[in-house]
């Protein structure tokens, strides 16, 4: 009998089936790797285990008993502890205060905090992780890697049967990574089960007994780690069969319109070279945090690079603000439509014209009838589903909102459009429409840089595919030579696999 048995777990988010009858079985004393592409459902699955989300259906059994995990508190009571991918520490509190947040040590009838006991225990925990760190240090004063270790110490401060680590290694240095692996070894000997989520496959081979591969919300396979190699795991993650719900087309690239040379931005981008031609869709892919969005923001003037040159139609330009980029014909469809792309409280009409309002000003005032007719034209051209131009965009669906953002940039008469995850959270039908529109735009000579984590879409849409890893472009693949495995290998920084396969 396994310590943990999750079966038939299904979770639906608006527009996305995040988990589709996923299952996971973990033994006491093992380190169990959970791998998959972005959006495969790993994080959702462990969030259900830790009570952060509730499953729509499915069964969770601990030691053979069915359990309802309806809140993080229940999970903690059952001995399930989670170390989150995003650090959840309070920057203004001390190390000890963070470690004991929610289960403070108190004494006396009035329940005074026993600071000394908590500080002593915190330092012991950190020492067991090889960290010499004062328990009184403020979180904001210590390094990111140290913060990650505090997060781990926090998890260890309660007695756990199952410890979930979601990408714990992504910000650790080699030395701390070594301490982490030592710790995992000790925990295993204490019969604690560890669920280890990581994009770094080499780690998995080092510390994990078994590996479960997920894809598209489903559990694909669970296998003893030694029976697979990295190549096979990547193949399982990507999958052989790809749904063909949209046709591939070839574009006819014209002359070069945008060129980046040796762009550097400390901690984010390293030595970026890139060129984009008229009438071409270039893909930019990589794992979350590889620097794709950062690169887009540099091209759009929202952030400034430390060094390097940007050339537009052969002429060097300096892009100090989005306004300058827009005036030069660049548009950015942001990854986060609601937070960065749209003013949700404003009408469709107002959002459509926001970036080029000066074109509609007559004698100091906005020409409303021209504004309305321009908006109506886009409603027709882009098949925007809305009752009127006066509809608040808050009340439109995700796919329709994306079209409104697109209308905004078409109205600025952009020559270069950057689509950052254009189909995220959009249903299949609307996706196909967005693709069609992109094809139409390139046929009119617009250049498109398409940032996407969805490899099938990148492979279908893009003439060339640039892959980023850790702030660098690790490879460029032509559509003919590209496949998902090569892209994944480059995205994980395993260049040799891409070359040999």
């Amino acid at each position: 009998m396994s310590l943990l048995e999750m079966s038939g777990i299904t979770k639906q988010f608006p527009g996305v089936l995040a988990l589709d009858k996923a299952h996971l079985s973990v033994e006491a004393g093992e380190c169990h790797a959970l791998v998959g592409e972005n959006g495969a459902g790993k994080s959702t699955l462990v969030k259900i285990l830790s009570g952060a989300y509730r499953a729509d259906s499915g069964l969770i059994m601990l030691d053979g008993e069915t359990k309802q995990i309806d809140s993080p508190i229940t999970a903690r009571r059952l001995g399930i502890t989670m170390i989150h991918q995003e650090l959840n520490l309070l920057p203004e509190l001390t190390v000890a205060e963070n470690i004991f947040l929610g289960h403070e040590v108190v004494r006396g009838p009035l329940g005074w905090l026993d600071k000394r006991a908590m500080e002593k225990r915190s330092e012991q925990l950190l020492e067991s992780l090889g960290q010499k760190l004062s328990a009184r240090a403020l979180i904001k004063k210590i390094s990111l890697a140290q913060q990650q270790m505090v997060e781990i110490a926090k998890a260890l401060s309660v007695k756990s049967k199952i410890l979930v680590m979601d990408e714990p290694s992504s910000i650790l240095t080699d030395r701390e990574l070594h301490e982490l692996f030592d710790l995992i070894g000790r925990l295993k000997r204490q019969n604690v089960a560890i669920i280890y989520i990581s994009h770094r496959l080499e780690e998995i081979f080092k510390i994990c007994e078994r590996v479960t591969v997920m894809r598209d919300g489903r559990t694909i396979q669970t296998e003893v780690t030694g029976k697979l190699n990295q190549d096979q795991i990547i193949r399982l993650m990507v999958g052989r069969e790809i749904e063909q719900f949209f046709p591939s087309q070839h574009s006819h690239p014209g002359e070069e319109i945008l060129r980046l040379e040796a762009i550097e931005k400390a901690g984010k981008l390293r030595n970026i070279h890139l060129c984009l031609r008229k009438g071409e869709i270039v893909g930019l892919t990589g794992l979350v945090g590889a620097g794709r969005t950062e690169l887009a923001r540099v091209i759009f003037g929202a952030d400034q690079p430390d060094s390097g040159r940007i050339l537009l139609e052969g002429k060097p330009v300096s892009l100090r603000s989005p306004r300058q980029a827009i005036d030069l014909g660049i548009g950015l469809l942001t990854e986060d439509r609601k937070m960065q792309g749209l003013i949700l409280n404003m009408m469709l009409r107002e959002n459509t014209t926001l970036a080029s309002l000066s074109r509609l000003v007559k004698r100091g005032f906005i020409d409303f009838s021209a504004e309305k007719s321009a908006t109506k034209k886009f409603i027709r051209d882009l098949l925007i589903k809305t009752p009127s131009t006066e509809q608040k965009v808050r009340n439109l669906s995700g796919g329709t909102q994306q079209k409104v953002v697109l209308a905004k940039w078409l109205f600025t008469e952009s020559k270069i459009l950057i689509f950052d995850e254009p189909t995220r959270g959009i249903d299949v039908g609307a996706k196909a429409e967005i693709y069609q529109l992109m094809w139409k735009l390139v046929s009119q000579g617009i250049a498109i840089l398409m940032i996407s984590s969805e490899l099938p879409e990148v492979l279908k849409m893009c003439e060339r595919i640039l892959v980023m890893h850790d702030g660098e472009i690790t490879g460029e693949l032509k559509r003919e030579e590209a496949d998902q495995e090569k892209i994944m290998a480059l995205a994980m920084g395993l260049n040799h696999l891409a070359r040999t396969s």
Partner: protein
Amino acid sequence: MKHSLRGWLRSAPQFLIVVAVVAECVIFAVLSPSFLTVDNFVNVALQIAIYGILAVGMTLVIITGGIDLSVGSVVALAGVATASLMERLAGQPSVGVTLAIVLGIVLGLISGGFAGLMVTRLRVPPFIVTLALMTIERGLAFILTGGFSIGNLPRGFGFLGRGHLGAVPVPVLTMALVFAAGYLLLSKSRSGRYIYAIGGNEEASRLSGINTKTVVHGVYLLNGGLAGLAGITLASRLGAGVPNAGLQYELDVIAAVVVGGTSLMGGVGSVMGTFWGTVFIGILNNGLNLANVDPYTQKVALGVVILLAVLLDRMKE
């Protein structure tokens, strides 16, 4: 029922406040025979003129997601500075009056410009910046006058606060012009659209190429200038520069703006709504006076009304 009420509130944002104004007029007309007279309405208009001028600027500031607590103190400072300059130039009254009016407005612009600078470039929360300015400027007004009022102002200066153009008092005319200009700016111009956009989502606005800092800075500047104008008008009406003039005006003005449907969260609101909010509170004060309600009870009534207005506003969400 609840759903239809909600939908109705959403579709006609200013309808409710207009209905409220009409309702209170009916009630006060019943309670007091002198309420429904031309004289009384001119009186109400005169009473709300200063508030109205301030409320237009405040509406813009609040729609950007900010607040300005310093306007009451700017009213006082502009008033006493104006009066003090005219006192010094008593030999040449016409030059004195002109220069003094310019000085009052410039002082307001400086105050607003400074607040805008702190808010946009140094990212200090507007509440804190303008709270500090409120205290500083009130203090300066007292320092400038030694705590006394400055009276005996030139005859020509009285026109702004006590003059008439035809039958219309000049302050009412000033208020009307400010409301009209504010309405055109906010509803018809590009800058107005940007003000709503920034209040709705500053980052999305910036990524749409809007120079958000310049727009927000401009709004504070304008608001300061209007506070200066209100200060001169009040000094003219009182016939003196009074260091504790305009005390707590900022709160009454914010109340009028909020009652008029502008959201303190930013991005939502209108100059027309503020107009009706100002009228509503003006009539409430006037009517309660005429109905012989004692001043303490009036305060309670005003507070309850503000709460009700905000509750109705919440129901729209």
